[in-house]
């Protein structure tokens, strides 16, 4: 591995895990949160013809998932370069 130091290796992994945890929180909130646990509350709000909770469960969660993966992919690319461990 090409880390400059042991600390760098630790810091890289820590940043990776913290990014992952943040994004997994969003993943959880849009699907299990808005789509299941809070669905009744959100259903009081309308989004066009959709009840909001229903929309999250059948549309919104999926759009968010797509955005999450691309955001993660971009952020990790930047992190790899910051620590000089990106691929040639």
């Amino acid at each position, binding site marked *: 591995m*090409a880390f400059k130091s042991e600390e760098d290796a630790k810091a890289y992994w820590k940043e990776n895990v913290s990014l992952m945890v943040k994004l997994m929180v969003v993943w959880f909130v849009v699907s*299990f949160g808005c789509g299941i646990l809070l669905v009744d509350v959100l259903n009081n709000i309308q989004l066009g*013809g959709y009840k909001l909770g229903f929309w999250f469960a059948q549309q919104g*969660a999926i759009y968010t998932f797509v955005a999450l*993966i691309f955001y993660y992919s971009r952020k*990790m690319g930047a992190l790899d370069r910051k620590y000089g*461990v990106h691929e040639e």
Partner: protein
Amino acid sequence: MDLQTLTYIVVGFTFALYMGIAVWARAGSTKEFYVAGGGIHPVANGMATGADWMSAASFIGMAGLIAFMGYGGSVFLMGWTGGFVVLAMLLAPYLRKYGKFTVPEFIGDRFYSRGARIVAVICLIICSVTYVIGQMKGIGVAFSRFLEVSYDTGLLVGMFIVFFYAVLGGMKGITYTQIAQYCVLILAYTIPAIFISLNLTGNPLPQLGFGSTLVGTDVYLLDRLDQVVTELGFAEYTTQVRLSTTNMFAYTMSLMIGTAGLPHVIIRFFTVPKVKDARSSAGWALVFIAILYTTAPAVAGMARLNLMSTIEPAPGQHLAYDERPQWFKNWETTGLLKFEDKNGDGRIQYTADTATNEMVKVDRDIMVLANPEIAQLPNWVIALVAAGGLAAALSTAAGLLLAISSAISHDLLKGVIMPDISEKQELMASRIAMAVAIAGAGYLGFNPPDFAAGTVALAFGLAASSIFPALMMGIFSKRINKEGAIWGMIGGITVTLLYVFQHKGIMFIPGTSFLGGMDANWFLGIEPNAFGVIGALVNFGVANLVSRLTAEPPEEVQELVEHIRVPMGVTEAHDH
């Protein structure tokens, strides 16, 4: 041109395309056979993953299920897409960095144990085989319905096509064929949906049309749907919960981690050149999947509304049986739609009350297939739907068969039984394993075991409770050792199996529940299909406990974990 001829032309054209690709993309090495040479562009791999993932069940079954489950059907939509987020962040990049050919190979190396590898092979084969039976049935059914040949002939033709490109091209042939199959299936799914959305709401995008008002009124489609179904005594479409909130939670989670743990999906990420590509490729896969998965709920709701308003155009005004439309008659002859004039008035009453309901059978699977007919779309659209259903079933079958055959030739033969065979011999062995796997799957397609319907849940349950936790702990913990991983996998599977067997009988033989007298869904009201997440928790718990009581993994294994966590110094997917 009549529908029959048109269907033959469209389906025949797509088959010729798949065969052409097979000849062009022959595999010359084990690396090409197992991981398509490791040089597939991430967008192309995403598309192939989409076709691999979306099976006959997604294409034909899912919208039909949702049409009758309403909001409760969301578990499939979120579960089968959210799993890719889990896969992209927790597994795919690290497994790609590790750079070997199969999932059991990683488990065997990380847990420095041939036993762990064999346990993983067994889990893999069970989940893939149960899954492939469904695809084989899908191929037979699609042929027999659209081309009016027998189920058996249809299955034989399907086996021949898969045999041709999977044996010849391995992962390489399968990948390029799946790209073509994705295009066919997504067109076949979206075109009818666009027509139907236009008819009902005037909006060509089904995702928006589903939230719009009905043409010529200011009533929202969803409000109208809720009203129509509740008037007949059915549960309100947009709030109909599947058993309970706890159950929906468990179901969604089980499908998500089951998705991330299914070997035929994971191995797709071994085919891209870099770690970076594995991350973005998961995103592309989900884009291609999301196009179908956001259309499906609209198709479901619109199909339900169309069905209801055909039978009862206005409240209290029931369709006369003699005036039923042609599609109604067509599906009646298949036995999937049944009418029984209980009150003898010659009109169709469709209600939630079984005593007065006269639509005694409405098979969920007909919703997608009948949709274009219900909406009176042109014949070429119906022909395209046939080709799309076949593409979905063929592409998933091929991906599963590759996962099975590589587990046999690479993990069992090369890894355990005959480690000294040459690359050329292994390539031959993998082709033979593929041929045997196709023959085996075909046999199960001709003679579907009685428990076939019950085992699909098992594929997800097994993947969620055995493979997913083992992979995740292998990457994120250095402390989990051989003993922990093996006992964790065994514990997770056992708990899941016991719960399923307790509901459906041992090995799905009815009446053999050994814990007789227990209430259905006794554990927190969770149904057996949703139990994978509990199995996974058991796996995590057991693995941690056992690992803490036994010796730490050896130094070189801890170094392996360090190695896979960093993209640099990527190893190409290779042998040793």
